């Protein structure tokens, strides 16, 4: 090339080399061409392409997670509110749904005006074969529950007193109570099990129901087992006493005496356990949280007070699946949008190509 520019001369040589390479490539057999083509997509270029793809996927997942997370937050908030609203608005005896977080989530058919009948009463029936008969000797159910009531502004003090009165009227008592800033507080009530449902109905009249959970734990089997063992031990004790009366040697008396002490200790321990069960069965435990309207619910975080590896692992699992769920939800939002964007880009590309051709 006849030019003053060395750069252009060099460029011409480079182009000639590229042309020669192309000629050689075209002259090569098909298999060789494929091999070279595969090789020509150089590693840095490949890695750059893969890097771009990986980055795009990562961004897509992050965006999907964010969208999914936001949508879940919105749904949870709305769900809790609507559930609370439903629970508060539903008339007594009508089917309603418990708010999220309650241990008894399905209160369908729960008739608070008829204690002992409905879901809870049915759960008392071993095997669920029919309603339990209240007062049946061997049926032992430990009932407890938690209720959160949002009371009107400046109505906390009055509601607190009325809660105490409700416990007393039901034949129970306030086991413990705590108040925070005179606008919210918690009372732990012990009321006779048969009066629990009536107490809940009266508590609901204090304000707007925010949360309610009731549960029953069947301890009949444990109770019967304890009673049987107690019976056996008492028989043993009586037998030992008889033998002790008939004992004639010092060593025999001492041995039987020791044996008697051991059995008697076991009897007292079992009796104590039976007393505890009877107490729990007789008196239900109801945790009542009163909160003035507008006061934010306290965050219960037992893990902070007593951290443990087990709870940390549980929380990690929950977090893991929450993130996955959020990403899946977000992808549900994004995929139709991405498909639409692809269609738009394809149409745009077609128009551009047509314009370029024209």
């Amino acid at each position: 090339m006849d030019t003053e520019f060395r750069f252009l001369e060099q460029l011409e040589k480079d182009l000639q080399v590229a042309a020669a390479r192309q000629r050689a490539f075209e002259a090569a057999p098909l298999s060789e061409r494929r091999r070279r083509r595969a090789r020509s997509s150089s590693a840095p270029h490949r890695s750059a392409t893969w890097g771009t793809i990986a980055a795009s996927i990562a961004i897509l997942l992050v965006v999907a997670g964010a969208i999914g997370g936001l949508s879940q937050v919105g749904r949870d908030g709305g769900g809790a509110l609507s559930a609370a609203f439903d629970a508060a608005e539903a008339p007594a005896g009508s089917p309603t749904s418990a708010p999220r977080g309650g241990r008894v989530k399905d209160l369908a058919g729960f008739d608070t005006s008829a204690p002992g009948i409905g879901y809870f009463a049915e759960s008392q029936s071993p095997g669920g074969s029919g309603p339990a008969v209240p007062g049946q000797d061997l049926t032992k159910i430990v009932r407890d529950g938690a209720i959160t009531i949002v009371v009107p502004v400046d109505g906390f003090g009055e509601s607190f007193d009325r809660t105490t009165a409700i416990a007393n009227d039901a034949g129970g008592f306030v086991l413990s109570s705590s108040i925070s800033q005179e606008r919210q507080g918690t009372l732990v009530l012990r009321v006779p099990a048969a009066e629990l449902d009536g107490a809940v109905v009266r508590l609901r009249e204090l304000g707007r129901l925010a949360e309610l959970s009731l549960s029953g734990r069947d301890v009949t089997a444990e109770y019967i087992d304890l009673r049987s063992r107690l019976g056996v031990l008492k028989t043993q004790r009586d037998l030992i006493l008889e033998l002790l009366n008939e004992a004639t040697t010092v060593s025999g008396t001492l041995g039987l005496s020791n044996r008697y002490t051991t059995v008697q200790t076991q009897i007292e321990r079992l009796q104590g356990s039976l007393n505890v069960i009877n107490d729990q069965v007789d008196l239900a435990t109801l945790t009542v949280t009163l909160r003035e309207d507008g006061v934010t619910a306290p965050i219960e975080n037992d893990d902070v007070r007593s951290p443990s590896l087990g709870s940390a692992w549980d929380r990690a699992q929950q977090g893991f699946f929450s993130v996955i769920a959020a990403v899946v939800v977000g992808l549900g939002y994004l995929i139709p949008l991405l498909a639409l964007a692809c269609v738009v880009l394809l149409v745009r590309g077609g128009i551009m190509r047509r314009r370029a051709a024209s």
Partner: protein
Amino acid sequence: MMPSTGDEPGAIGRLGGRGRRVDERTDTQLLLASRTDPGAFTALYRRHAEALLRYFARRTLDPEAAAELTAETFAQAFASRATYRDEGVDGVGWLYGVARHQLGRFFRSGRVDADARRKLGMPERPVPPEDFDRIEELVDFEPIREALVEVLAELPDRQRDALQLRVLEGREYPEVARALSCTEVNARQRVSRGLRTLALALQERGLALATEAD
């Protein structure tokens, strides 16, 4: 500058030097022939390389960017020559279409692509020092001197000083290097970067370079 159609053989560039036989085919014919005979593309290159370098130099003001854009444009044209159709746009028009595309990308990103050269296995070569001055001579700064002074104030100190000495005062590179207390290579780099920044700034301000009229 609207390039010549080049459909008249030998219309651009000094061809036939060093005893080489003049290729009398038109640009369109060369481009079409290069599909099956890559060597025909070399003839097209010889015909238009210098003009294209001038085209880029007058628009980028930067010798380095102009040289790179020339290389990338020819590489891109060579790589996609099979897509050329003789449907109203002649060969040189198509070539300058590729050039305009590259120039647009340069003004948008501030850097010259090297994708086509990489694809063809062509090395990215630095501009030889002696070419620097020659490429700069292709640029006529006179019509844009006023705009230059205005934009110059916005440049970083080192680039501004280099441009002041080289472009406005017209000093040679050895002298610029002495004034800036740096090597000649560094002085060229500063001028090059300054010119590139300048061209981009002018482009952003919508100031059409006077050389566009060429």
